[in-house]
């Protein structure tokens, strides 16, 4: 079990996860971490009042997760829910035959922790160094009982995993590899701009293998398609896993199947 149990650092029984995670509590007498959170202005937290934010911060811990380390595994007891404040995370399911199916990529501002009958419905793993706010599910639910209107606000935050998986279903419905790859790149662009970033160039936090897995293609097909887009002058491949969208209108037409 690789659940994000983020134990007390003094614990003798550190899991392999605890080696990858640094947690810090934020007692109410200290300045709230929300005050300096870069994800705050484009996440649902932005709409919380100062008092609501303070109450959430009181039950929250910040955790840092190293790349390629699990945050939780599918079917682990769902003790926590998370908000990503920095970095990127992939969510995936293990299929019956042992294969892994990536069902979504989540970024700063997104919420994590969809469950079914008190266990996590997906596994989640950091793609790059990630920082998350971690809330104990039961304490969060108790807080909702005390502040009923918080419930509506949290629902807006909590649907990101479902939305990511539904985006994927729409992407897989696109027929050609080219349409899927271009749609995916535009999806990352849209996500980045929605989260307050410039969007272009697009940062690919995930490997081509992850992209292939997500799009239902082979890694070779993804690489070949990106190379072709580059040759056609539609994109430029930059350093540091960034890709510049050189002809946005043409890319949008491809994504729409024209």
């Amino acid at each position, binding site marked *: 079990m690789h659940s994000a149990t983020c134990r007390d650092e003094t614990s003798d029984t550190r899991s392999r996860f605890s080696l990858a995670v640094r947690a810090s509590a934020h007692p109410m007498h200290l300045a709230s971490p929300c005050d300096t959170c870069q994800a705050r202005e484009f996440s649902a937290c932005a709409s919380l009042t100062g008092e609501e934010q303070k109450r959430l911060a009181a039950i929250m811990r910040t955790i840092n997760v190293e790349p390629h380390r699990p945050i939780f595994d599918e079917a682990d007891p769902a003790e926590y829910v998370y908000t990503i404040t920095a970095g990127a995370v992939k969510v995936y399911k293990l299929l019956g035959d042992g294969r892994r199916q990536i069902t979504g990529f989540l970024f700063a501002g997104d919420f994590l922790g*969809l469950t079914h009958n*008190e266990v996590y419905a997906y596994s989640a793993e950091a793609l790059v160094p990630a920082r998350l706010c971690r809330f104990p599910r039961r304490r969060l639910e108790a807080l*909702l009982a005390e502040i009923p209107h918080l419930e509506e606000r949290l629902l807006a935050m909590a649907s990101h995993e479902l939305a990511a998986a539904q985006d994927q*279903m729409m992407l897989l419905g696109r027929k050609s590899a080219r349409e899927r790859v271009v749609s995916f790149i535009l999806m990352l662009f849209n996500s980045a701009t929605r989260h307050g970033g410039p969007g272009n160039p697009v940062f690919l936090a995930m490997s081509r293998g992850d992209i292939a897995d997500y799009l239902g293609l082979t890694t070779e097909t993804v690489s070949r398609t990106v190379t072709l887009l580059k040759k056609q002058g539609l994109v430029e491949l930059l350093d540091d896993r960034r890709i510049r969208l050189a002809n946005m209108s043409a890319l949008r037409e491809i994504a729409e199947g024209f």
Partner: protein
Amino acid sequence: MVDTLTARFLDRRTIDKAYPLVRNIVPGMTAARWARFVRPHLMPRSPDWPRGVMTIQNAGGCILSLFAFEVRADLHETRIFCMDHIMIPDLPGRGTLWASTIGAAERLAEMNGCGAIKVEFARGPERSDQKLLMALEAMGYSLASVRASKRLKAKPGDTGDDGDGVTRSVRGLCDA
């Protein structure tokens, strides 16, 4: 940011989109089986006796919950609104979602001149169902009716296994 929740009918184009929600509620469900199950629910029927699948979507078009419904004749009430296959994920803030889902069902029942609403839970006492039952009771639903169900053994050759390791009932095949 408080999401605006909207009730929309599921249509053939959005069957696949609803699949991640369904898979969340019914682990192991395949996309093919979901599509085969739901397609007949979307076939046009007599306008007097509608059936379909209603979804609750947020402002971004994400399907957050759904249920199947059918208006049936009833000896006591003339027309009743039956809802089943209710799929509401275990999300923080789901109370709002329950209220929207049940509210959509009630509006639909009213529009169709139904005298009562029957809600069916076929899967047994799962935790999420129990919470929904409590929510329904709080919304004025009576949980007092008696119902019984029994799992039947499928006949050899009638397992409905499509090679995806999921056994389907004979009725499920008829539905498809």
